């Protein structure tokens, strides 16, 4: 049984359907990339998994439990954390307070001090900046805080929505190295990315979304050599 199983979900924004009968799975310990153009339904998929949106049909199971009817705050407690697009930090709170809020759920709360030290070890920049307001950080640092805040919830599955968005190439490299480190430490990662080359090169598997449907799936190394991907997403 996979860690996360999504079975034929539909999702709508008002009357507009953005996801059609989508099925996918994430196994324990994997890094899975979801790639696709704008409007393919990538972010919506993450929003449905994390409970910000409800799927109108289909089911989602996590560790064997149905989660598709639960509100976002319960889904975090199950062990799925969603690091949203655009980082969405709490701007007027210090870096440390942002991280502490990440450990709000009752599963993570008792270990908050220990988790905080682990996050500081993984992302030493955050320890240096702990008393600075989140809004005063640079884009790369903000992304690190967003990822750190996600890790504070002690997730089994970390979902990242475009972690490289709006960052300079050198920082993008940093972010992806961090993601790889997190995966190597044992957290399963599901990542939505526009930077197809980078994300596939560190992933185990990938799904390609177009117009709300999965059009291709497979091992990341196969996808990166696929002629369709090379022309459509890598510009070769």
């Amino acid at each position, binding site marked *: 049984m996979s860690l996360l199983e999504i079975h034929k979900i539909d999702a709508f924004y008002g009357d507009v359907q953005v996801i059609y009968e989508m099925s996918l799975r994430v196994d324990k310990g994997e890094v899975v990339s979801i790639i696709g153009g704008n409007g393919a339904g990538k972010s919506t998929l993450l929003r449905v998994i*994390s409970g*910000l949106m409800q799927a109108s049909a289909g089911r989602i199971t996590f560790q064997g439990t149905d989660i598709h009817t639960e*509100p*976002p*705050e319960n889904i*975090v*407690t199950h062990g799925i*954390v*969603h690091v*949203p697009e655009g980082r*969405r*930090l*709490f*701007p*007027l*709170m210090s870096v440390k*307070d942002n991280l*502490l*809020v*990440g450990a*709000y*759920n*009752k599963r*993570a*709360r008792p270990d908050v001090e220990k988790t905080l030290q682990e996050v500081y070890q993984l992302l030493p920049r955050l320890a240096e900046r702990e008393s600075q307001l989140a*809004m005063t950080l640079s884009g790369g640092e903000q992304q690190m805080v967003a990822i750190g*805040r996600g890790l504070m*919830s002690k997730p089994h599955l970390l979902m990242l929505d475009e972690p490289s968005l709006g960052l300079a190439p050198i920082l993008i490299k940093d972010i992806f190295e961090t993601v790889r480190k997190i995966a190597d430490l044992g957290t399963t990662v599901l990542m939505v990315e526009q930077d197809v080359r980078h994300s596939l090169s560190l992933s185990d598997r990938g799904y390609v979304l177009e117009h709300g449907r999965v059009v291709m799936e497979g091992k990341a190394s196969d996808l990166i050599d696929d002629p369709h991907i090379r022309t459509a997403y890598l510009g070769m």
Partner: protein
Amino acid sequence: MLYIIEDMINGVLMGSIYGLTAMGLTIIFGVLKVINFAHGSLLMVGMYATYWAITLTGVHPYLALAMVIPAMFIFGYYLQAIVIKPIFIAEKNVREPITVIIVTTGIWYILDNLALLVFGPQYRSLADNPLKGKMLEVGGMFVSQPKLFGFITAIITASTIHWFLQKTVMGRAIRATSMDREAASLMGINQYRIYNVAFGIGAATTGIAAVTLLPFYNVFPTVGVLFDIKCFIIVVLGGLGSISGALLGGIIIGLIESVGPQFMTATWTEAIVYGLFLLVLFVKPSGLFGQKHDW
């Protein structure tokens, strides 16, 4: 000269009580992003609660705090949970749920008229009031003792709320929700529960204000209306959502109201208050202590 200093002191004291009165409004707005039009009614409920707590038990007015704070917290908590929350849920996809404002207006009318029905229209004041008309003499100046107690209470309340918001798990969750409720829910925070707690804290703070007011103020069913407009002005002046801003806004208005009449007819001070209010809106719409954080 002495008169002016005396007026300034009394203005600061009264102003801090105004600030305390407005603090609940600013807390509720800061978290729910909704102007609570029933704020004056919460104050009225708090004042009746204080009045009956003192009259029935015969304790010192300030000991009523031990009863009024928990009672008002529970009242606010369930008012939000039962009456307001369903509207929030129905308007989940609306960014600025205006209907909630209309609901709070309804609560205002219902509470005021319930009070009229139950307690009647008469003005009530504490019968056996140890603080009544008590003055402290400091170097030839007279300072109202109940107002001094109110000032101290306001400072303690503001510092306690500040500490609570900064240093506790619940406080951080409240701040997080006030800045980005969707991101907060992704962190495992149930936004509606936070709304309940924030409304409870706002009501409890208003209850504290009611306790400080009662030793020198009458209570009657529409007493809240007298404070409503003042509270709105204070909160906008100090910056919506800012605790220290509410205190400072209150003190500014208290000062104008007490020092002004030395130089002009008392009615003119009202005009000055509104003039200043407009000026702040023109120059710094987010208020003196308000922070913009849309980025």
